[in-house]
């Protein structure tokens, strides 16, 4: 075992009936870092998290958290993890405070300790005003914050976040990202599953891409972006008559490819670095071209998958043969 790996999994296999959810997944997360596990629905992300958090027993392979085996030392593992996902939920009939105090009591913080920790977390997650309301009255964003707070009651070393921002609006998503960054700054190790490359890019030190229960890529965000084509600059000139001149400028600032009209009135060009954005703004100003939209985009999950596998992420799973190639 490498001393620095807090989460390690080798060859995880899990089968549900005829569905092969995991077909030999390796994961490795060094202490104090964030691993983004990227994949479409049904890729096996949740199954992997459930095995690592001791909720499921793998059919094959091994996994260790802080050196403890998730099957043989499950009790030890449970002492050092926090789990947040749609399934690891809170009690809707209890208030936010009652939920957090219950988990504090179960984690042996003692009565006063549980109360203090609950107050601390409610404050941190901006839930103090709603603390005495039943969780079922919370909005989606508040509920997500309470779920996350509930997984942090025991100050865990290792935190699993299973799609923590799915369904949240962009502002709430940024808040959640801030929380994750704070946790890592405080020394926690985080495994985060997501369907958004943007999210993995914003938070993760490394990204593992999973598809059909198998790892199809593992890289730093930079490395992955290099493989899948980096970013795209999208521009909509105010006057459609300016499209040809806009395209000319974009082709010059881009990484070599011709600018394309991807939607009516919107041009796009692949770029290699963020400087292309400012450069294009300067050139449009000089040329006297007014633009109504200008944005830099990471490739979507679909584009990532298309590049890595030659098909889109949403393609039907059942049409693909499942036998192990290697």
């Amino acid at each position, binding site marked *: 075992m490498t001393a620095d790996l807090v989460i390690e999994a080798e060859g995880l296999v899990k089968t549900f009936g005829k569905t092969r959810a995991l077909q030999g997944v390796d994961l490795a997360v060094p202490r104090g870092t964030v691993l983004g596990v990227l994949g479409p629905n049904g890729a096996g992300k949740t199954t992997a998290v459930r095995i690592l958090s001791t909720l499921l027993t793998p059919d094959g392979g091994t996994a260790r958290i802080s050196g403890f085996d998730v099957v043989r030392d499950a009790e*030890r593992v449970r002492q050092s993890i926090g789990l947040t996902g749609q*399934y690891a939920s809170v009690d809707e*009939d209890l208030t936010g405070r009652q939920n957090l105090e219950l988990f504090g009591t*179960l984690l042996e913080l003692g009565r006063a300790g549980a109360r203090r*920790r609950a107050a601390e977390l409610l404050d941190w997650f901006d839930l103090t005003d709603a603390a005495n309301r039943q969780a079922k009255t919370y909005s989606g964003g508040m509920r997500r914050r309470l779920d996350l707070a509930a997984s942090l009651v025991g*100050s865990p*070393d290792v935190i699993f976040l299973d799609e923590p921002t799915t369904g949240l609006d962009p502002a709430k998503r940024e808040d959640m990202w801030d929380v994750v960054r704070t946790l890592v700054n405080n020394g926690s190790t985080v495994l985060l599953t997501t369907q958004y490359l943007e999210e993995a890019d914003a938070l993760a030190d490394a990204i593992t891409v999973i598809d059909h229960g198998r790892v199809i890529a593992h890289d730093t965000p930079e490395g992955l972006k290099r493989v899948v084509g980096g970013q795209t600059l999208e521009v909509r000139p105010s006057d459609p008559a300016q499209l040809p001149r806009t395209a000319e400028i974009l082709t010059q600032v881009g990484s070599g490819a011709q600018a394309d009209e991807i939607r009516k009135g919107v041009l796009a060009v692949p770029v290699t670095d963020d400087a292309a954005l400012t450069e294009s703004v300067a050139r449009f100003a000089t040329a006297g071209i007014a633009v109504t939209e200008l944005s830099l985009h990471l490739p979507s999950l679909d584009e990532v998958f298309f590049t890595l596998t030659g098909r889109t992420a949403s393609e039907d799973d059942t049409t693909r043969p499942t036998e192990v190639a290697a």
Partner: protein
Amino acid sequence: MSTLTDTAPTRSRALSTTAPNPRPFRLVRHSLALAKRSLIKTWRTPEALIDVTLQPVLFLIIFVYVFGGAVAGSTHDYLQFLLPGILAQTIATGAIAIGVNLNTDIAKGIFDRFRSLPIPRSAPLVGAVLGDVVRYVIVTVSTLAIGYVMGFRIDTDLFRAIAGCLLAVLFALCLSWLPVLVSMKVRTAGAVQGVMFALIMPLSFASNVFVGADTLPGWMQAFVDVNPMTHLVASVRGLFLGTPLGNHVWWTLAWCAGFVAVFMPLALRAYRKKI
């Protein structure tokens, strides 16, 4: 959320470096903490108690005033005879609710959170079972209260009356491992209710709840004689009214022990295997 980084609590302890907590009675303490959760839920959703409080009222009124004259000659005599039976029937039906609630809880995901915590795996189930004791006490008190209003009177003393109530509560507590088991085995909350009614109804009607067992045909008497409900009702009747107790209390306690010995391990096993 803008000041997150400033107010983030410092990490107080590194859990992974400490050994599992050896403090004694973990199962008891954790179960009690989780029982408190059930209590809060019961308190928060009083409408969930309507079935167990309304049922004895309806049964007492209907049976006493419709059948009382015909069965026992007078409504008062029949009320005296019937109330211990209705108490037993209602408290046994009341035990169904735990299966329904557990099934709903598991579907909602709170149990996965419990399973990711370093607590005994059985604590959430034991906690839920213990938390429902309050429900049984409420059933007992409300049945006795409506009975009192209708004219029911305890013929023995306070001590024996309380013993009768406790026996009924104990019976429901032990029996409730059966609905817990069923809730682990069937898919929906509605199915738990259906299966449990199908099991409880014959037990409460093919018994001495509504009429004396000696009026029944012989083949049915054989069933009635071993029916746990019969022993509970005879015990409560004896403790409330002073009728002969025989071995009924012992039989009731034996059934209680049997329920726990059989259904509790099965329920815990089914719970561990579920999901």
